[in-house]
């Protein structure tokens, strides 16, 4: 066993609301895996897309503030939401290369900018810090026979040199993680295509079109379900799936799991500890069929 793993945990706004099952399953899974999570005290919203969309300075300042708050907790920063992850990483990158912007942000938060903390997405912690071997060792209910379509979306890997999680164009980290717990993965064409993200509020029509293409591709590749690491992707793929089926007069029936939910199943956590009942596309028939619950 390696050294104990402890992180400052930044759930992000969605995990306290529409993605509460992501939060729940993350805490439960990490508990089982012996990874310590301490929530960043009084964290703020990172600003997400709306902030950087119209006000980069505000976006950078909010991220810098959160980095400062996280600094008070020991350990690297564990981030669950791909959007928060992307914002925090981008802020670190921009503040690292631009003196002008760093000075402005320091004025805005009235504190020095802290850039040395390591911001990590949960995937990175599982695949690299814990390691695939230790992850596999914790499995008591391998996800054998479950065909998973891993959906990266946009923000986990793009642009190439910023998040540094994996290759921007041909990432494998999700596949590696879920294969480590016994699942099969499918090769599919749309794992990196955009779902429409936060347009879900302002332009649902666009989201429906883009998300449909993603669902269609996963289904065509023979997937049983989709795995995501982002509440925005989840919202579009899961919450809007029924609506999309209606618009396109088709049926996908693809449960959309957070990575922590699927891995949670493999380490023996029950449905109640993983928030499976919060999923709009009911995963129970699939899980029963595969003998996983």
């Amino acid at each position, binding site marked *: 066993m390696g050294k104990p793993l402890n992180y400052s945990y930044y759930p992000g706004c969605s995990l306290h609301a529409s993605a509460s099952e992501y939060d729940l399953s993350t805490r439960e899974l990490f508990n089982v895996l012996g990874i310590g999570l301490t929530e960043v005290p009084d964290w*703020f919203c990172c*600003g*997400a897309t709306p902030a950087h969309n*119209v*006000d*980069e300075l505000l976006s950078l300042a909010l991220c810098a503030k959160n980095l400062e708050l996280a600094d008070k907790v020991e350990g690297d920063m564990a981030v669950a939401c791909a959007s928060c992850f992307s914002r925090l990483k981008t802020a670190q990158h*921009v503040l690292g290369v631009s003196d002008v912007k760093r000075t402005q942000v320091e*004025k805005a*938060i009235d504190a020095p900018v802290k850039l040395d903390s390591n911001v990590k997405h949960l995937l990175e912690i599982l695949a690299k810090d814990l390691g695939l071997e230790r992850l596999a060792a914790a499995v008591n209910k391998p996800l054998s026979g479950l065909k998973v379509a891993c959906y990266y979306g946009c923000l986990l890997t793009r642009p190439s040199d910023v998040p540094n999680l994996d290759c921007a164009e041909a990432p494998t980290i999700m596949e590696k993680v879920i294969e480590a717990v016994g699942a099969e993965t499918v090769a599919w064409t749309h794992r990196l295509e955009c779902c429409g993200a936060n347009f879900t509020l302002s*332009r649902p029509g666009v989201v429906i079109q883009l998300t449909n293409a993603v669902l269609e591709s996963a289904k065509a590749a023979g997937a049983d379900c989709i795995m995501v690491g982002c509440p925005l992707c989840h919202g579009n793929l899961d919450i809007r799936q029924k609506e999309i089926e209606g618009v396109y007069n088709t049926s996908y029936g693809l449960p959309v799991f957070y990575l922590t939910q699927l891995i949670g199943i493999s380490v023996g956590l029950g449905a109640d500890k993983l928030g499976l009942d919060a999923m709009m596309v009911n995963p129970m028939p699939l899980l029963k069929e595969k003998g996983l619950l």
Partner: protein
Amino acid sequence: MIKKKMIISQETMDVDFVRKVEALAGTSVRRCFQCGKCSAGCPMATFMEHPPNRIMRLLQLGQWQRVLAGRSIWYCVSCETCTTRCPNTVDLASIMDALRKLSWDSDGASKESYVQLANKLFLQNIRTYGRQYEMRLAAVFNVKSGQFLKDLMLGPKLIAKGKLKMFHSKNKNISEIEKIFTRIEEMRKKGDAL
């Protein structure tokens, strides 16, 4: 649609605007050589009247009015595909951010009211609560955008699944967030920041 002839001269090419965009976006506008790879991969290109490469072109010519007059920049979803694949390492997604900021500042030069409204509400929420409360965001958005019935079917289901919280609390350190907002406003007033 009638397209106005573009009269090009040193006067009509607004280089200062371009410099402002470059400063905000931290990337070069001139570097783009119009290969169109950004537009080829942009998930939103079909919704835009100017595909991303043309936005770059108009910028190169200093024709910002043409860029801001349309909705294109508000259809960009910040997926970063363009930035990732540009052969010239032009950070086009950041240019889009910069353009939206400049449009936002000039208050309504661009016509994409829904996205603007959503952004506005989102930022207001942060300012008031420190965090985002989706229920409130969605409800207010629907009221303000006059689409009372939008996603009506989803609401109750989400509440039943615990996905929309009816009540929310403020951050304990909420005053700090207000300070950040005001400091930025002051810096801008003084001209210390764009």
